[in-house]
Every structure is written in C-alpha cells, then in structure tokens.
C-alpha cells in the first residue's frame, strides 16, 4: 500500500495525512487516505457510517496506531509524539462524552483541570458557546437536551485552548435548529483562527465546510470545496416530481439515456448521459416521455448537482443516504 501523496506538503499545514491504512481483522477501515488541512480551515469529512471517519479521527488523536502511512498533527507525528499532541488538540468523540451525574459547571471544570487550566483561563475562547448553557450551570449534564449536551461537550473540548479541534459527528442526534447554531459557532471559532476537522454523515452540512473529503469504505473519493465537488458530477441533472414515485422511478430507469435515478428528499434526481445536449431540451424530452407513460402530473426541471449527487455518483450506487 502507500501510493504517493496527492497533496503537496506544506510545513505550516496543521494536519497532513499521507497514505494512511488501518485494518481491523477482515475490514479495511482506512485505505490509503491522504489529506492536508490548512491553518484556520474548517475541514469536513463526509460520508456514511462505517466509512472510516471515526478510525481516522482516532489515529489523528493518537488513540490508534496506523498500519501504514503517516500523519502529522501540528507538525507532530501521531505515533511518536503522542503526548505532545494530546496536550494541544481538542477532541470530541462520536458520543457526547460527559459525566451525566456531574453538573454543567463540574464537567467543564473537570476537563479544564485535566488539561491543567481552569474555566476562567479558558473563558475567552469558550464564551460564545458557554454563555448559552451557563444559565444551566448547576443542572446535571444527564438532564440536558441534545443540543445543550453538544455545546457543553464542545466547551469541554475547547476550554484548554487547543491548536486544532477534532469533532467526530458532533451533530448526530441533535435537532435541526441546534445543528444550525452549532455550525454558526464552528464558523466563529474558525474566524478566530482555529483549525477544525469535523465529520458528518449529513450531506447538507458539507456545504458549511471550507473543504470536504468524501469518504466511503475507508477511502477518500474526492477532496475539494463543496461547490467544486458538486461540479464533479459528470452528467446533466434534473429534479423530477410526481405523485406516483414508483412508476416515475421505473420509467426513468428504463429511459433510453438514463444514467442514474435516486430519491432525494421529496423529489427524484435523474441524470442523463447526453452531456453535450441543452439541459432544457433534455428536460422537455423527459417530461414528454413521462406524460406519454401516463404520469401527467410529472414535473421535470434542470438543477445544479450538489455534494450528495456527486457522492451518490462516486459511490456508484443508487441507494440514498440519510436525508436531512
């Protein structure tokens, strides 16, 4: 294993991953993964569960040793410089790792002390987040809502002023409003100069990152800005609506130039193999086809492909991931 790195290495990059591989028994959890993250970048790892995101985080936070390849965090080697890295990173694992029987303030104070600091010393960095949960500082963490737990966990990961932040699926199990607020917080942290690596199974959250890497089966399928990733989609794309989805899917799959069809929220995304044809012309052809087959209410419009479309096409499967 270990093909040459695709990203040019810069000394200043707070995170450089080069050809990482990790296997658990028969499962290749990571396969030749390479990424490079820039200072003060909000970098997203996007992909379905089991894609290798958590394994990658655990290697970067020195919890696991890779089988092959190498990685540096803040210029430190993840295997050799384990203790230096641990003092300087902030890490929020997949579940909100808090003590439910301790209060909000006690949790935060404990994690601050573990890193040799205090809530007061860390206050300036956590202030925008902690202020939102401070009214509940005496409440036990176990009695907080998902969104508040998430903010407390983020405060705990930030209180020692880390130089880089690793967040493993921080928005899983949190309501939509809290998710939006959380991403706003990440943006303000990024503005203050913090490098953030965040993973998510939700495609719609990928748009909020500076750059994303699409991950599946332990591999990186693509790494780029969200808009650029959408542009990687190889075919003209159309949104199709109609009340008889089953018939729509069947008909579109059997259409002469069909590239892919998959459900996307309330509509279907249909892509067509005729890349050099005018999209509006394709749309009207498809519409006629559907009307001819008896689906008179079918609407077809040309749309810009998003990250999820690219992801589906890169995965080479028509199964949908969890819609937001």
């Amino acid at each position, binding site marked *: 294993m270990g093909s040459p790195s695709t990203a040019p290495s810069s000394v200043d990059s707070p995170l450089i991953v080069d050809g990482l591989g990790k296997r658990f028994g028969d499962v290749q959890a990571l396969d030749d993964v390479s990424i490079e993250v820039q200072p003060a970048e909000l970098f997203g790892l996007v992909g379905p569960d089991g894609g290798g995101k958590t394994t990658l985080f655990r290697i970067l936070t020195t919890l*696991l040793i890779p089988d092959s390849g190498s990685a540096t965090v803040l210029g430190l080697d993840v295997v050799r410089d384990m203790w230096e890295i641990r*003092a300087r990173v902030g890490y929020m694992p997949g579940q909100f*790792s808090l003590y439910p029987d301790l209060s909000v303030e006690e949790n935060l104070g*404990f994690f601050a002390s*573990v890193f*040799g600091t205090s809530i007061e010393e860390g206050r300036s960095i956590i202030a925008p987040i902690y202020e939102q949960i401070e009214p509940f500082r005496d409440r036990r963490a176990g009695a907080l809502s998902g969104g508040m737990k998430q903010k407390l966990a983020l405060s705990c990961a930030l209180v020692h002023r880390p130089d880089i932040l690793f967040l493993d699926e921080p928005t899983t199990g949190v309501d939509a409003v809290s998710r939006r607020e959380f991403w706003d917080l990440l943006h303000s942290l990024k503005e203050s100069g913090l490098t953030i690596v965040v993973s998510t199974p939700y495609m719609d959250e990928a748009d909020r990152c500076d750059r994303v890497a699409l991950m599946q089966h332990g591999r990186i399928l693509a790494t780029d800005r969200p808009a650029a990733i959408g542009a990687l989609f190889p075919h003209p794309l159309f949104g199709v609506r109609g009340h008889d989805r089953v018939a729509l899917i069947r008909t579109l799959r059997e259409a002469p130039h069909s590239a892919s069809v998959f459900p996307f929220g309330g509509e279907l995304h249909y892509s067509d193999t005729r890349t050099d044809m005018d999209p509006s012309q394709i749309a009207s052809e498809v519409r006629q086809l559907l009307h001819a087959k008896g689906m008179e209410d079918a609407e077809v419009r040309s749309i810009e492909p998003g990250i999820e479309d690219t992801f589906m096409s890169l995965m080479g499967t028509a199964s949908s991931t969890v819609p937001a």
Partner: protein
Amino acid sequence: MMRPGAMRAFMVKEIRHILRDRQTLTILLLLPLAMVVLFGYALRSDVKDVRIAFVDPMPDDATGAIRNRFAGSARFQVVDVVPTVAAVEPLFRRGAADVALVFEPDLAGRLSRGSPAQLLLIGDVSDPNTGTTIQAYASAILADYQRDLSTARSGMRIEMRTRMRYNPTLESVNLFVPGLIALVLTLVSALMTAISLSKEKERGTLEVLLVSPLRPWQIILGKVLPYLLLAFVNVVTALLAAWAVFQVPFRGSLALLLVASMLYSMVSLALGVLVAAITTSQRAAMIGAMAGTMLPNELLSGMIFPIASLPDWLQWVTIVIPARWYIVISRGIMLKGAGIEHLWSEMLVLVAMLAGFLLLAVRSFSSRLD
C-alpha cells in the same frame, strides 16, 4: 506538563460519582453491617432439641444407660430406636431425625470384657456448623458416661467415630468476621472500581481522558484512591458491628489490622482495574470481577471452607488468592493478638501481589485504544 491540580480534580470528580449514586452508596455503607449481623446470626452455634435416633441392634444395660443420658439432656430429643442402620435412612429422608447414634451389638458384654467398644454418630446436617456443634454435645454426653464407667471399672473405653453425611467444617462467628471483612473489601474495591472504570469506557469519557495529558497511572490512581477511603470506612464499620453485636474479641493491634486491610484493599483495587482494563463493557467487567475476585476470595480463602479440606490442586490455587493471606493476618491479629513479627511473611505476600497486579493493571490499561 501535568499539574497536581489534575489529580485532585480527578479525585474530586470520582468522589462526586460515589456520593451522587445514593442507592449504591447506601448499600455499600450498610453492607458490612448487614453482612456481619446476618452471617453472625446465621452461623450461631447454639443448637437445641436435636432429634436423635438410636440404632440399637441388641439392647442391653449399657445401651439403655447411654440412651437415658441422651433423653435426659436438654439438647436432645429421642425420636426413635431402630434395630438396623438401614432403618434410620427413612427417618433422615423424612427429616424426622437430625442424627443417629449407632451402637455395636453386645455393647455391655464388650465393656465388661474390657475390649474397646465403638459408637458411630451419623449426622444429617446441611449446615456444617450445626453438625460440629451436635457432635460436640454428643461427645460430651458419652465422655460423661465413660468417666462414670471408668471410676467403677477401670480400663474400659468407648471410642466414638463420627460420620457426617455432608462435608463438615469448623467455623464460628469469630473466625468468620475476618473473612467477612475480606469479602466486603473485595466488593467495594475490586467490583466497584471495575464497574466505575468500565463505565468510563462505555460512556466514551475514557476516550476523552486518554486524549489528554493524563498518564494511565494518573487515571488509575485518581480512580482508586476514593474507593480506598470507602474501604477504610467499611473496615471500621464491620469491626464495630462485630464487636458490638457479637463481642468478637479483638486482641491485637488495631493499627496493624487497618494497615493490613488497606493493603488488601489496594490489591483488590488493582485487580478491579485489571478486570476493567481487559473487558469492554460494564456488564462483562461486573461478571469478570465477580467471577475473578468475589468467588475465589469467598470460596478459596479459608473463609468458609478450611484450606486443609480442599483437594491438593485447589490448595495450590489458593496461594494466588489475596484473601487467603489477608484472612490469616486478620485472624491472627484479632483472635490471637499476633503482631507483625508473626505476620510479616503474609504481609510480604500481599505487598508482592500488590506490586504484581498493579504492574499488570498499568500495563494492560493502554494509553491507546487498541
């Protein structure tokens, strides 16, 4: 890199966990009290109204005299006289008799000829302590009879042999208290630490702690020290209960006993950490701690079954059971008033075990996840 504040914060946090789990805390605090009282009463050696049957194949003066002495005793109640041993069996099975005394045929003749006479006491005792006590009462009555005979005609004797239908052991509440303390300490130290540490694993908080400047030994120390405090409270409670309820004698140095108890607690704590380190869930850790520490400490320590009564290979196994050594120490101090000069070798064994288990625990407690 690591400030002393971190250790303190860890212990404060751990003490909060202990104090906030009210139910568990209550159980842990009352446990030594309950165990001493329950075990103490359950193992009381006063036995009254023992139902005795006689197997008298050839009734004569001698058997009649002995039967009368039993009938006259407040301890015994004669339920039947049968001619053969086989006839006693149904009595046992029905639960109508507790013991049977078997006479040799022609007992009076043997005694008058001066040849040794044999009596056999068969006990139907599921509780070994009761059996031992009954045996002692019967022996006393026979010894009385023998003494009277001997003054009349010298050189005559009755030999009594006892056969218990279940494996008998010799224990009393005095011997039990040291074992109970060991059991309570094992529970608090090994089981509770194993649960508490594996809880961190399950919740994912350990993952965060690992990605911190805390070293494994600091996590372990912060985890176990509060439990050592709890163990200390438990030892004192158990001793007080034993002394107040059963007047268990306390002949040796309290300080030495407390030192030995804390040493034993630390061994158990290290075992608890070891169990938590090699298991992946709370449930597995709990079962592991029960099977790996509670059971052997109860069964193979000499607390209930004397080590001498175990098969040879099991006797060898007991060497690695910490409670075995602790019980020797605590019995020595409490019951015999033994000092460090008599117990240093057992203490050394515990120190060696502590070092060994601690090393194993720290080594198996990885600073990474795999």
